[in-house]
């Protein structure tokens, strides 16, 4: 969907299906990956993302479909004949070999000369900032260092596609952020095509060129991090990539040229801009409102545009933001208030005005009810 017209895809995954017994794990997955692109498969556990990665790497046989790397079908090849390198979640470093021996394992198989191997190993160590650690045994390394070795080992023979299976999940929170940026930096620098798998949507947003959201064995949405976050195609994705308020509404009027429309909710009328073409007056819709896009002020009982009135039921200060809950009668909405120190001091029980932004994302009701069971 975001394909450059002049660039042919490097890796084409075409209608991959896989079932383990009666359990259909992948129900027809297709995606093209450009050269140098980092594409992330993200989804809840059991959505089939690791299976898909193992199929691309050749460890699991798919039932049907095609994998094409630089125009050549590789789906039938065993892993040792594919130009893909996987980096497992648990790193799978050879514990009986040193760091350098781990890094040179693949080079020796390709029958590199001794001097060249040494040169390449040093280069790799430098790349991942582990100079001088070649002689260490694996169990003498910290988790982060093991992660680096695993990454370097996957890069050792310059594969065409790098497959990363939740590479950061064994690291603690701080290190995870650091390594995430490190991997992204190296990946961009080396311009290496990468398929990344994670269950962590924030990690996916931070690291990816494109995100593929998988659930129940099918692709729910493909898009840039911004696209996925701002324009989720269904309630599942809206929920999956961050907290969200859903508000049901009916379209009163819509200007098909500009998208300017008025909608009625249970709590009042709103003016919003709708980008989709297929929504007409009378349609039932769901407004997808991110907590940080809503603004809030103490109510002065005057009528304002796009304001819903409610009662503050919770105000939780967490430093960078304050989490507010506002009750609009029978339901509540969540608001993230950034930079809360500069604002009014709200107190639980305050009457407040909640301003809904005009450019709120809208889901057509029919689609939503089908997906959001």
């Amino acid at each position: 969907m975001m394909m450059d017209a002049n660039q042919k895809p490097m890796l084409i995954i075409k209608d991959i299906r896989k079932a383990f017994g009666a359990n259909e794990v992948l129900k027809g997955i297709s995606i093209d990956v450009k050269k140098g692109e980092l594409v992330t498969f993200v989804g809840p556990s059991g959505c089939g993302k690791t299976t898909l990665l193992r199929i691309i790497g050749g460890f699991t046989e798919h039932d049907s479909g095609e994998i094409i790397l630089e125009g050549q079908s590789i789906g039938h090849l065993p892993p040792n004949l594919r130009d893909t390198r996987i980096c497992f979640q648990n790193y799978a470093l050879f514990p009986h070999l040193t760091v350098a021996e781990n890094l040179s394992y693949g080079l020796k198989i390709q029958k590199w000369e001794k001097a060249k191997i040494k040169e390449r190993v040093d280069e790799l160590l430098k790349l991942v900032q582990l100079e001088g650690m070649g002689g260490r045994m694996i169990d003498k390394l910290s988790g982060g260092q093991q992660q680096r070795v695993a990454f370097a080992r996957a890069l050792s023979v310059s594969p065409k596609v790098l497959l990363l299976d939740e590479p950061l999940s064994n690291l603690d929170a701080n290190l995870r952020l650091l390594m995430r940026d490190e991997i992204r930096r190296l990946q961009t620098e080396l311009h290496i095509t990468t398929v990344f798998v994670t269950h962590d949507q924030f990690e996916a947003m931070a690291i990816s060129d494109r995100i593929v959201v998988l659930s129940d064995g099918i692709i729910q949405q493909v898009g840039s991090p911004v696209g996925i976050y701002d324009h989720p195609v269904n309630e599942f994705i809206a929920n999956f990539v961050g907290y969200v308020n859903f508000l049901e509404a009916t379209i009163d009027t819509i200007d098909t040229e500009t998208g300017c429309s008025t909608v009625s909710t249970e709590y009042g009328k709103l003016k919003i801009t709708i980008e989709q073409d297929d929504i007409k007056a009378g349609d039932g819709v769901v407004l997808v409102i991110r907590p940080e896009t809503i603004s809030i002020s103490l109510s002065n009982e005057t009528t304002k545009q796009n304001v819903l009135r409610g009662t503050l039921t919770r105000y939780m200060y967490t430093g960078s933001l304050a989490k507010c809950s506002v009750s609009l009668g029978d339901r509540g909405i969540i608001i993230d208030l950034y930079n809360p120190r500069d604002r009014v001091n709200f107190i639980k029980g305050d009457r407040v005005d909640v301003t809904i932004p005009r450019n709120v994302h809208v889901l057509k009701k029919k689609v939503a009810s089908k997906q959001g069971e």
Partner: protein
Amino acid sequence: MARAITYDSHLYGWGRVKEFINARFINILAAFLFLLLAFFLIYPIIAVLIKSFQGPEGFTLSYYKNFFTHAYFFQSLYNTLLLGLINTVLCLIIGFCFAYMTTRGPMALRKPLKLIAMVPLIAPPYLFALSLIILFGRRGLITNAFNVGWEIYGFDGVVIAQTLAFIPLAFLMLENTIKSLNPNLEESAYDMGATEGRIIRTITIPLLTPGLLKAALLVFVMTIAEFGNAAVLGGRTPFLAPDTYTMITGEADFHMGSVLSIMLIIPCIIIFFVHSYLISGKKFTTIEGKPIASEPRKMSLLIKLPFIAVTFISGFVILVCFAVVMVAAFVNIIGVRNEFILSHMLDFRHNMAIYNSIKVSFIAALIGGGIGTLLAYVIVRGKFFGRTFIEMVALSGFALPGTVIGVGYLLAFSAPPFKLTGGILILALNCVFRFLAVGVEAGIAKLHQINIEIEEASSDMGASFIATFSRIVLPIMFPAFVAGFIYTFMTTMVSLSAVVFLVSPGYELAAVSIFNAAVYGKIGLASATTLKMIVIVILCMITLSLLSKFTKLDIEHKGGAA
């Protein structure tokens, strides 16, 4: 747990005693258990040691001199060690092939192959001696059918029988180590372009080395100690275990019998220490992610063929051995007079022996399960000096050849003040202490699962130590007791090497009856009794697996009895 007890001055008499017991309960228990171990495990061995040095005029080395100057004895030692070596290599190769196929091979083959590799577990090891005689003996089915001149009696026969008998032991240990090997390691190598042969050579085998070594040591100890196969099939080839038996029961030479026992026990003790050292040694640690069931590899034919050949051929042989024994049980003289008869199965003396065996096994199991549970508790929760020593002694039983224990008990308990021979108790007791390891290990495993805070909570609520022990600890450890019970029952049932010294006329045990029948060529009778034993063992195993299913207790099989 060890709560400070304040001695109130108003407490006298029974109150004081009770309090003392509560405060020192675990130490009193430990002392008592240690005395039992010392008396029934260490003392008999020492009795053998003393006997081997005890001449008419006190200390002498003449019996050892005798051993080393007679070519026959030296040959016996050499044969025993060589047998151990060859057996170990064969068992490891076959066991590895089975284990690799059941963990990495095609899905469809995994379960059946595993089943076949475990089949010998349900039979006494000497079943294979019987079936080899039926097939290759002087009137053997294959001997007659193809007129082969090959003599099964001798070194080759013993090697084959022993290898078949100890495949499950090697398989179980190797399967365990391969299972603990993260399949991602091999997959990474595969990913980097390694062929399957190269993966096995550079990744699988090196990472399995500690496990392979441990399995090798255990198989070695078990095979050199095994008595039945060597005694039945050895023919004129000397081996230490049966030679000890002949020396004691045939020539009534307790001194030379003791020397032979010592020669048998030395390698076992060395190996036991090496083994304990290896277990305590460091393992390769790697970051563990989610456990991934290993998917079948696309094995190339060149790799697949040898694995398939080894597993299929040995599996086939195992099944044939079982089949011929089953047939022989219902045939007059198999191969000679092939008529269906039930007289082997109905033989009164042998059925009495089975009954006796069940009785002895039951007593042994009851005592063994109890002592094992208590020992585990003392080892895990105790805080006294010598705790690890007690553990070591308790676990050493499996490394001690039954023959040596048999001789030891004969020497230690045949005269007052400790006269036990001739009774039923001595038959049970030697098995209790030899097969203690499994009960103790199951108990230790169970105790590690439960948090000490449960016990602390109990005493915090005011329960005395004894109350905590009987109301909290014992119920929790009950599954471990049952595991120890059933295992001791099973192994005592088939155990031959020690009791063969200790049975008294008129009180036959099934294992000894099979042995005698086999030696005298009554193959049908021996087969029938073996078959009954198999049925009993299968019933035990079913109970064991049901138990481990319901209690989630990992019950480890230690392999057949020596």
